[in-house]
């Protein structure tokens, strides 16, 4: 009796088990291991994994009315597998996309050719909440505006990957991707011995190399720092993790000062030390109280001056969120064609813009079939999933859209793929995938990414703040047999 024989039938694309109820190519060896262990052993190992996570203190913070709660990172033992040859194609598509988006951002803050050529309506860009006039006129080394991108991919029932959104502002999750790998190596060492799984821990070296490459100063060893809002931020764990792995300082706003010559320094016990590159994990709005929110105590007064003077590199650059707007998303295929003269290698999900008259009518009439997204929220907040919504929720969104059409986009509900997940037995649960893409002097894509899984049966919401979990992602090199 094989584990996969009990796997429930359903109509979605499953990442591991094909319609014929046998493991797909990339999952064959994995299932050999799972069957060797058996369900009881798997459950034991799941417990070991959870204990390891508690011991390593891998946690994330949930904001709630009752204050902030530190929760242990939810992890499911059964990995998601992808064939290396398929991943290579995805990688090319992601690099292509980020390259085009960076050219777009540089254009928007300079000549605005794409607007003049009427590829994108001006108001879509200039009314975006993340358009920053303060960044106008800036030209960056390697056009590295969005240096670190965490794109959300989903696989639809046609078996194809789609980009759901581009996270260009301060994407998070990469430390969890790496920790998932550490945990799964600890609890399933045999599998790593037998299966060709691409390693992923070189990410932090690649990140440091990329950050060094955007330094505007001609120093041999650029001083790189990670700027965090502090311990109360939900991603603090990740900020500390990345700084540690790169061997650079983790700083808070109050550790940095900008002097009259527009140079950035950090406060050390023996005085001030010059900083060349800042990997900031703070939103634009809090970055510099001289320019943006005056009440920000997280930022560094004068940072924008220093950046504009070309004395410090900031990753991601202020204002790059303009390309990470859910309305603009609809135009990314056009952006790729315009700047690169290439066809997009990864598809977009069809997107209706509520600000367009014909789309507006369609959306209002078909609310119950669509997913409605606010143009500028992250973390799965303020989302409406039409087929699952109550009449009351549908009415609320109908009103919201009519009040402010620019603020909403709609997409058809996708039948996103599932992965076997350890419950009482193995059951299918929906997943997405967030790979991380670096763009500096060179481009780099992680081997796999963070697979997030909706642990609740039938649920499509994968966010950890809302009952989502995660899995290790294995990119598998198949051996010729």
């Amino acid at each position, binding site marked *: 009796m094989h584990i996969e024989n009990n796997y429930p039938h359903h109509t979605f694309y499953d990442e591991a088990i094909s319609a014929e109820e046998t493991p797909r190519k990339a999952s064959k060896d994995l299932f050999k291991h799972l069957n060797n262990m058996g369900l009881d052993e798997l459950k034991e190992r799941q417990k070991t994994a959870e204990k390891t996570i508690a011991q390593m*203190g891998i946690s994330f913070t949930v904001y709630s009315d009752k204050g902030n709660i530190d929760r242990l990172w939810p992890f499911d033992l059964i990995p998601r597998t992808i064939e290396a040859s398929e991943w290579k194609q995805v990688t090319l598509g992601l690099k292509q996309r980020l390259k085009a988006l960076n050219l777009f951002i540089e254009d928007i803050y300079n000549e605005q050719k794409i607007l003049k050529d009427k590829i994108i309506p001006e108001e879509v860009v200039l009314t975006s909440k993340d358009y920053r006039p303060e960044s106008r006129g800036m030209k960056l080394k390697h056009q590295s505006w969005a240096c670190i991108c965490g794109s959300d991919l989903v696989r639809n029932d046609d078996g194809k990957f789609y980009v759901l959104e581009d996270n260009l502002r301060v994407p998070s999750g990469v430390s969890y991707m790496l920790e998932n790998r550490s945990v799964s190596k600890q609890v399933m060492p045999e599998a790593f011995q037998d299966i060709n799984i691409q390693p992923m821990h070189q990410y932090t070296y690649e990140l440091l190399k990329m950050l060094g490459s955007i330094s505007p100063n001609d120093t041999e060893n650029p001083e790189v720092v990670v700027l965090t809002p502090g311990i109360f931020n939900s991603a603090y764990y990740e900020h500390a993790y990345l700084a540690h792995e790169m061997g650079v300082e983790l700083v808070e706003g109050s550790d940095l000062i900008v002097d009259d010559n527009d140079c950035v320094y950090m406060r050390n016990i023996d005085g001030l030390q010059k900083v060349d590159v800042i990997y900031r994990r703070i939103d634009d709005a809090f970055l510099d109280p001289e320019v943006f929110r005056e009440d920000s105590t997280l930022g560094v007064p004068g940072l924008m001056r220093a950046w504009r003077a070309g004395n410090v590199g900031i990753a991601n650059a202020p204002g790059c969120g303009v390309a990470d707007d859910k309305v603009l998303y609809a135009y990314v295929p056009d952006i790729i064609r315009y700047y690169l003269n290439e066809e997009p290698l990864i598809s977009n999900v069809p997107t209706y813009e509520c600000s367009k008259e014909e789309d507006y009518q369609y959306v209002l009439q078909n609310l119950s079939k669509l997913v409605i997204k606010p143009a500028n929220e992250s973390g799965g907040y303020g989302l409406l999933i039409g087929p699952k919504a109550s009449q009351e929720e549908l009415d609320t969104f109908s009103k919201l859209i009519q009040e402010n059409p620019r603020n909403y986009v709609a997409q058809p509900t996708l039948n996103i793929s599932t992965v076997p997940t350890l419950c009482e037995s193995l059951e299918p649960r929906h997943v997405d995938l967030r790979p991380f893409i670096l763009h500096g002097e060179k481009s780099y894509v992680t081997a796999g990414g963070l697979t997030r899984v909706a642990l609740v049966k039938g649920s499509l919401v994968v966010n950890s703040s809302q009952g989502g979990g995660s899995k290790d992602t294995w990119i598998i090199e198949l051996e010729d047999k």
Partner: protein
Amino acid sequence: MLSRVAERLYWLARYIERIENTARLAQVHSQLMLDMPKSVKLSWHTLIEITNNEDFFDEHYDAKTEKNCCWALLGDRDNSASLMSSLWWARENVRTTRDTLPRETWIYINELYLLVNEKQEDFYVRSKRNTLLEQIIRSCQAIAGMLDGTMSLNTTFQFLQLGTAIERADMTSRLLDVGAFFVAQETEAQEIKQFESILWANILKSVSAYFMYRQAVHMDINGKSVIRYLVNDPALFRSIKHCATMMQTQVNTLPNTLEINESISELQALIEKKIPFELGSPVLHNYLDDVQMQLSKVHNQFYSTWFHPSISQETMQQQSQ
């Protein structure tokens, strides 16, 4: 090294030292309670007094019961000086300086935190309290040993040493003050006399110096000699003198230390002085007060030199109490 990181490392070491000392203090105190005659005014509340928690206690508790006193000192998260608060802060400080410390530091501290958090109800129960305190002490020793065994002599280690040394010296002076409290009791001097050796033996135990004292000082245990031993024995790691030397060693290789060096020299001069000791008089207490003041001066100079060079002293002591 970042000023902020230096500050947190310094406090991390202080908290670890403080957790161990507080646990030991509570443990020894409950032993002492069993030995002392009823007429000696020794209560659970003495613990609150030694640790300077009277104001907090008066504000938050009614009766000076064993349960209340133990909870205020050990488990109460609202008391910024409780063992649990120190542990919480120690853990936060590791979390924010993780990148400068051996990986085990986080694992050990986190483990201890999870343990105490799970068992904190045991602080209420006399029969279980000691077991938990024992575990806490052992964990703190493991952490200190791990750091000694895995670090190199770098700036991180130096700030940890400074924190350990100053907290240890401060705690030793406070514990001696318990002795001073009894010495100063005029009316009951006669009655205390017969319990004197038990009292001072317990003070030695609470800084885990009993064994070393026995080996080094071959005579009966009395106030004068215990005080001398704990204040200026050069060989005892927990003596105030040794703590001062430890600080000076580290300070010598850190930047901008002219002022701090002077203050440490003053502290050393104070330690070398003949310690006043007189039954029925507060002179010992006053002397220990001077020592604590001098420690506090050194602490403030750490701030003005390394942690917050240009910011006024009131705003900067968010972590101290």
